[in-house]
């Protein structure tokens, strides 16, 4: 691992809570690491767990999925589905030997700009500890 290694994080945020929370962090000028790039989806329930695998395969060193707190889902139940699906995926990936530090899930509400910062910092820090995930890269092999 080189000293100037910067982990590449892909994050999936629900439109109503977490994306709004990240926007709030912006309007509040909260500073956090630039390693994170956000893909907006309407609901955390939209996040196919295989996106996580796909992101790791395609160059991400860490993945974050964030949605509304339980009970606050704009679509009532989407985050509950996300929780079950991604919980399963996390177990599966850990069993296959993917460092659990590479994948996090969080609940960040529209009013939690500061929590968003904390979540990003934790995700980046953990991915940094886990190091580059080159072994699983799609193009690493006979590309």
């Amino acid at each position, binding site marked *: 691992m080189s000293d100037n290694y910067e982990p590449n994080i892909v994050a999936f945020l629900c439109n109503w809570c977490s994306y709004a929370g990240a926007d709030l962090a912006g309007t509040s000028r909260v500073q956090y690491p630039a390693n994170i790039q956000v893909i907006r989806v309407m609901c955390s329930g939209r996040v196919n767990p295989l996106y996580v695998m796909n992101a790791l395969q395609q160059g991400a060193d860490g993945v974050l999925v964030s949605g509304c707190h339980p009970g606050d889902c704009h679509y009532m139940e989407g985050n509950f589905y996300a*929780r079950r699906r991604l919980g399963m995926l996390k177990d*599966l990936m850990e069993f296959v*030997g*993917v460092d659990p530090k590479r994948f996090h899930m*969080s609940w960040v509400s529209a009013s939690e700009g500061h929590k968003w910062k904390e979540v990003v910092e934790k995700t980046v820090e953990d991915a940094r500890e886990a190091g580059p995930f080159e072994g699983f890269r*799609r193009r690493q092999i006979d590309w």
Partner: protein
Amino acid sequence: MDLEQLRKTAAEVVARDDVKYLIGWKKGSYGYRVAPVFVEDAAGVAELIFSPLCTANLTTYLTLVEKTPLPRGQEADKRKVALMVKGCDSRAVVQLLVEKGIHREEVIVIGCPCPGVVDQSLLVEKYGDTEEPVEVKWNGDGFMLVRGGEEIKIPRDEVLAEKCRLCRYPNPVISDHLIGAEVEKWSPAEDSGVSELDAKDVDGRWEYWEEQFNKCIRCYSCRNVCPLCYCQDCILDRLNPTWINRAVNFSENTAFNISRAFHLAGRCIECGECERVCPANIPLGKINRKMAREVREKYGFEPGLDPEAEPFQASFKPDDPEDFIL
């Protein structure tokens, strides 16, 4: 095993007008091999067997039959399919009912209580392969190998398939005709295969699976043999979008195997077919059983038991575990 009762029941079933055929097992073309057989008339029932070599889960054939376009005016064949199942196989039938892959009225389940089947590769390893057809029978607590007039007693643990050591449902959970008496359940062994991997650290597990997935030749036999992989158009074959590239390399093989296991989480009924058919000997059962264990222990759910159950992947509980959430 009451072969006479099996053949008699089978003959009655296939004689019905509303039955298309009966899917069972017959002796294979050589050695220990057993092959699936599709019996359409009473003459065919003589081929049927049920022995410790009948490992294949025939449930997969319920959804494997292609629905090719019918000429205009021609009616689809709506006759029932009769099917021989062991305990594990029967859970696949139930799970298919849950997922509407089949409807109850389309199938006649012939349940075969199962004292456990043998792992053919162990048999070959210990007793050698042969081109002559041989017989293996249940014998008291173990098995009996009959080869060229010679009878060899085999202790149960020596060749019992791993999935059977862990089995919790030796008797069919659903059946229309039960052949013979239910067998007494045994206490399932500790799943050491999974526990040993669990005990490793993540890097150790990654190393383990790296070696395994590198062997994968992507023949898709694991998927095709699985009674619950019955999508018309598997996402792993799809090009738009491409979830997994066709390229055969460690990255894509791993992605393929993760996806397959994920799609089976909360659905896999642990019949072990994927692992049995894998020409690369990848221990796929470990992944599936690991997920089944998580689903059972963390979510209190077991698939393939209740035809009225809500599908695990399409439901949630408000108090599902969330200790992993930041």
